[in-house]
C-alpha cells in the first residue's frame, strides 16, 4: 500500500538524518578537550593515562568508537554531565517539561491570535484592523525576541509588578512522576505568561502573514466562487470551504517551524532564566559540559526529525488529494 511505502521512505530519511546528527555529536566529543582530564585531572602520570586511554577504548579506530557511541546512545546512554555528575539524559529529562510548557503556552497564543487575525486580514484586507495588523507585523518581525522579552520584564515585572520575571515558580503540579506543569495553578500560569508571549511574538507576524496570503489565494479559487454560487452562508464559505484549504499549506510551513521554535526557546529561556532545555544548553556551553552539549544536540535533532515526520503524516491525512509517492513539496 502506498501509505506503507511512504512511511518506510520517511522513516529511512529520519534515520539517515539522525545518523548524520549523531556523527556530528560524536565528532564533537572527540575534539572537545580530553575526556580523561575531565575525569582524572592533571596529576595522573602519562603512562597511567595511556593505559586508561586504552582501557576506555580511546585509542580504537574512529569507526569502532563511533559504533560504540551509537550503541550506547540507542540504549539511552549519552554520557555523564561533567557539571551535574549525573547521566546527561537524566538532566535533559528533568528540564524537558519546562520547555514543553513554554512551547505549549506560545503555541496556544499563536493559534488563538494568528488564525482569527490572519483570516480577517484576508477577508477584509482594506479594513483598519487589517492595516494595523499588517503594519504591526512588520514591526514585530523587526524586534529580536530577546528584546521583546526584556521589554515585557521591564514593563510587567519591574514597573507594574504584575507578573514574575524569572523561573517557573513553586506551585507546579506533577501530572505524572517526573513531569511537572505550570498550567494548573495560578502561580505556575503567572510565570508562564510573559515567556510565552515573548516566544510567540516572533511567530505571530509570520503566521498572520502566512494565513492571510494563503487564504487570499484560496478565496480566488473557482471552488470558492462556486460555493458562493450555491448560496452558502459567508460563515460556511470562509470558515469551512476556504479555511480548510488554507490549513494545509499553513500546517506544512507551521510544522517545520519547530526548529525555529526550539532556537527561540534558547533565547527566551535565557532571558527569563526558565529552567528548560535551552537555558541548560547555554549554561552547558559556558561550562564546556561536553556530554550535555552532545545530548542536547541529539535530543533536539530527534525532536526535529520526529516532528517533521509527524507533520508530513498529518499533511497526508488532512489532505485527501496528496499523492503519497515521494515527499510532498
Amino acid at each position, binding site marked *: 500500500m502506498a501509505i506503507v511505502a511512504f512511511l518506510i521512505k520517511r522513516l529511512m530519511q529520519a534515520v539517515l538524518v539522525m545518523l548524520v546528527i549523531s556523527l556530528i555529536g560524536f565528532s564533537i566529543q572527540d575534539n572537545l578537550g580530553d575526556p580523561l582530564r575531565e575525569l582524572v585531572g592533571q596529576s595522573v602520570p602519562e603512562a597511567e593515562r595511556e593505559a586508561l586511554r586504552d582501557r576506555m577504548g580511546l585509542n580504537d579506530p574512529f569507526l569502532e568508537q563511533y559504533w560504540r557511541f551509537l550503541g550506547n546512545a540507542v540504549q539511552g546512554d549519552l554520557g555523564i554531565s561533567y557539571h551535574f555528575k549525573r547521566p546527561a539524559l537524566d538532566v535533559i529529562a528533568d528540564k524537558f517539561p519546562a520547555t514543553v510548557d513554554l512551547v505549549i503556552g506560545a503555541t496556544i497564543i499563536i493559534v488563538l491570535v494568528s488564525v482569527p487575525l490572519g483570516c480577517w486580514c484576508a477577508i477584509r484586507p482594506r479594513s483598519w484592523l487589517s492595516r494595523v495588523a499588517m503594519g504591526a507585523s512588520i514591526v514585530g518581525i523587526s524586534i529580536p525576541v530577546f528584546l521583546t522579552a526584556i521589554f515585557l520584564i521591564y514593563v510587567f515585572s519591574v514597573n507594574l509588578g504584575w507578573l514574575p520575571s524569572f523561573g517557573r515558580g513553586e506551585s507546579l503540579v506533577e501530572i505524572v512522576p517526573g513531569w511537572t506543569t505550570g498550567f494548573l495553578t495560578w502561580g505556575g500560569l503567572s510565570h508562564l505568561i510573559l515567556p510565552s508571549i515573548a516566544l510567540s511574538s516572533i511567530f505571530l507576524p509570520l503566521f498572520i502573514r502566512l494565513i492571510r496570503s494563503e487564504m487570499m489565494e484560496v478565496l480566488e479559487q473557482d471552488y470558492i*466562487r*462556486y460555493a458562493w454560487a450555491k448560496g*452558502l452562508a459567508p460563515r460556511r464559505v470562509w470558515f469551512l470551504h476556504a479555511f480548510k484549504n488554507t490549513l494545509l499549506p499553513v500546517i506544512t510551513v507551521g510544522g517545520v517551524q519547530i526548529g525555529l521554535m526550539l532556537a527561540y526557546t534558547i533565547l527566551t529561556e535565557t532571558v527569563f532564566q526558565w529552567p528548560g532545555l535551552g537555558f541548560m544548553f547555554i549554561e552547558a556551553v559556558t561550562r564546556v559540559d561536553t556530554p550535555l552539549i552532545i545530548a542536547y544536540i541529539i535530543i533536539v535533532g530527534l525532536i526535529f526529525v520526529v516532528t517533521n515526520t509527524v507533520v508530513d503524516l498529518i499533511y497526508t491525512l488532512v489532505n485527501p488529494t496528496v499523492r503519497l509517492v515521494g515527499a510532498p513539496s
Partner: protein
Amino acid sequence: MPLLDVRDLRVEFPTRHGVLTALHDVDFTVDRGERLGIVGESGAGKSVAAFAILNLISRPGHIAGGSILFEGQNLTRLSIHQMRRVRGNRISMIFQDPMMTLNPVLTIGTQMVETLKAHRKIGDAEARRIAATRLGEVKIPSPDKRLDSYPHELSGGMRQRVVIAIALLTEPALIIADEPTTALDVTIQAEIMSLMLDLCKTHGVGLILITHDLAVVSQVTQRVVVLYAGRVVETGKTARVVQDPVHPYTRGLLAALPGEGTAGARLNQIRGSMPPLTAVPAGCPFHPRCDHVQDSCRAALPALEDLDGHRVRCTRARDLASGVAA
C-alpha cells in the same frame, strides 16, 4: 412575462488605466423551461454575463447599469441576504472546469448536503437521501458510496455529473452552464451535454448555455445570443440564426466549424482576433476583421436592427440578409 429578463446590462471593471466596460447594454430573456445559448469567442463577455446574473463578478468589476428581472424581482437591487436565497436555490450554476469547482477537501456528500441545507429546513439523513437520488439521476453508479468520496477520486466527467446533480438538487427554475463540457475529454463531451439536455427537459428547468461552439448551441438551445466585444451582435431563434446567419461574425463562427466545407480543406478561421477590452476599435467593433467593411462601419456603432424577430447589429444587415452583399 419571461422567467429572466436582462435589460441594458452594463458591467464595468475599474482599472489603473481607466474603466473597462465588459458588457455594453446587453439584452436577453429566458422563458420558463426555455434554453438559451450565449455564444462568442473568449473575452467576448459570455462568462461575465453569466456571473452578473448571480452578482458574482469578481471585484473590482461591478454591474454599472441595467436590470435583471427574475421571477418578478430585480436581482441587481437585492440585498446580499436576499441574493443568497436565489443563488443555488432558484438559479444554479455549472462551472467550466469540474476539476476546479468542487472543493478538494470536502466529500461529495458534504458539498451536496450543504446546498440543500442552505435553502431548505431539512435533516441530514433526508438531505443525503435526496443527494443520492440526484446522483442516480445523473447516472453515477452506486450513489450512496459516492457521497463519501472526495472529488479527486472521480474522473472529470464524473465530477461534472456531480456538479449537474448539485445544480438540480433544489429544483431551480434556471440553470446557468458556463462552458460545461469544454474542460472535459472530447469523447465524453456529447454524453454530458445530452444528459444535461434530457434533465432540463424532464425537470422543465430553463437553461442558459454559455459556449463558443455554435454546433452545440444548435443541438441544445432554442434561442441564441451572439456576443462580440461585450455587445450583442446577433440574436434570434437558434434554428434561424444557424441556418441564415446575417452578421459577418456569426457567419465566420459557423464557417469555422469543422465539417463545414470540403473534407480535408483548411478550417475557415476568422482572420485576426478579438480586440482586448483596452483596445476596442471605434465604430463597429468587428470592422477590422470584417470582409464586408464599408466607411460607415468605421464611423459609428451600428444599432441592433430587427429583421422580424431576428436582431442583428450591422450597418449592412439588410443587404447581407437579402444576399446583396454576399
